[in-house]
């Protein structure tokens, strides 16, 4: 087997073929989505990646170190999708950029359920250590949201904690949906999520208008 089995994992064949380390990371993400963290073993990862056990240990010293690398990879993929979408909407006003970022994020998760699973569901059951990474990942979206954001509707600046809570709230909502097996339907949440993160800066009515304008 020189490549991963075809399936609805959404990882590109180019990525899968690129090299052993990347293949192992991809194999862990897919195995985790199938059987969960506890049941995932180094042998299963190696078999799926067509990499021998001894080669596995040339890249990672344990299942956990492979898992952490995979987690970081999946988070970076999510971040890149948002950053690219915001950049593509570059000169538009803030709310339009935010909307583009949310659409990109939820579309990526819906199309690559294994990425959604490791970052937002299965990965979180891997024990205490992963929470630092999860926290860092969630917090890394806050500056993206705040960049170019207007002051609150009353004219006063929106405190960072408000946007932190909003981003944490979205992460919690997405995590609940992914855990419930509703990953494929995440894009239906775009209007809710956009309204939720715009509201502190624009007020409920203006946020609603932008969301319903699509």
């Amino acid at each position, binding site marked *: 087997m020189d490549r991963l089995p075809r399936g609805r994992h959404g990882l590109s064949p180019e990525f899968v073929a690129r090299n052993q380390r990347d293949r192992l990371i991809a194999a862990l993400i897919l195995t985790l989505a199938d059987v969960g963290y506890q049941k995932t073993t180094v042998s299963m990862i190696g078999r799926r990646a067509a990499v021998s056990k001894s080669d596995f240990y040339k890249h990672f010293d344990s299942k956990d170190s492979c898992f952490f690398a995979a987690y970081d990879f999946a988070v970076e993929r999510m971040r890149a999708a948002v950053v690219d979408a915001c950049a593509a909407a570059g000169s538009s006003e803030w709310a339009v950029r935010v909307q583009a970022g949310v659409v990109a994020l939820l579309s990526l998760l819906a199309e690559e359920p294994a990425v959604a699973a490791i970052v937002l569901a299965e990965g979180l059951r891997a024990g*205490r250590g992963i929470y630092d990474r999860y926290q860092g990942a969630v917090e890394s979206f806050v500056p993206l949201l705040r960049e170019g954001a207007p002051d609150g509707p*009353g004219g006063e600046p929106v405190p960072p904690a*408000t946007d932190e809570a909003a981003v944490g709230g979205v992460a919690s*909502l997405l995590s609940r949906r992914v855990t419930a097996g509703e990953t494929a339907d995440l894009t239906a949440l775009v209007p809710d999520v956009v309204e939720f993160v715009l509201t502190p800066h624009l007020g409920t009515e203006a946020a609603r208008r932008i969301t319903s304008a699509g």
Partner: protein
Amino acid sequence: MSATRPQLPAEFVAAHKRRRMIDAMAALCAEQGYEATKIADVVRRAHVARKTLYDNFSGKEDLFLAAFDTTLADAEAEIAEACDAIDADEWEARTEAGLRALLGFVAAHPEAAALAFVEAPAATPTSAARYEAALEGFIARLRESAPPGPVRPVTLEEALVGGAVWIVQRQVRRGAAADARDLLPELAEFVVSPYRGVGKR
């Protein structure tokens, strides 16, 4: 009674021992995490016999779940009491009072807060499920108490509770549970503002 030493009722002693084991579990979780905590550590910390522990709990996970349930019940009782002290039509004030009670609980019980907010979501599959159920309870409470108004996104309460819990969790993880009350102004604003239009008072 012929004993020269005053005796406490047996139920009181039993309840007190049970509490000591639960508190020991919380303290050890806060220090070293659930995974590293051993029954032997709990027994030593709680000053109870190993047999006493197994008379009360089937094992480490059972004790942990009891500690989680106790913490949740204590916190919910304080929140309910604080909310009920405010008139039902004072929605904002009630919500703020509930949040204040929650943050006060976290500040007064940093170890129990660490157990409930940091350890429970990842300790075991059963504890993760109970944690989720607890979140569900807070979401339902907020949804039921929300004031009548225009149609709002159905996910609003999930995102608000998730966001508030996120901030509390982070505070506890930073070892700053004792200062949790400082979070009140911004958290109250965060939770209440979507219902009234931000910035309007």
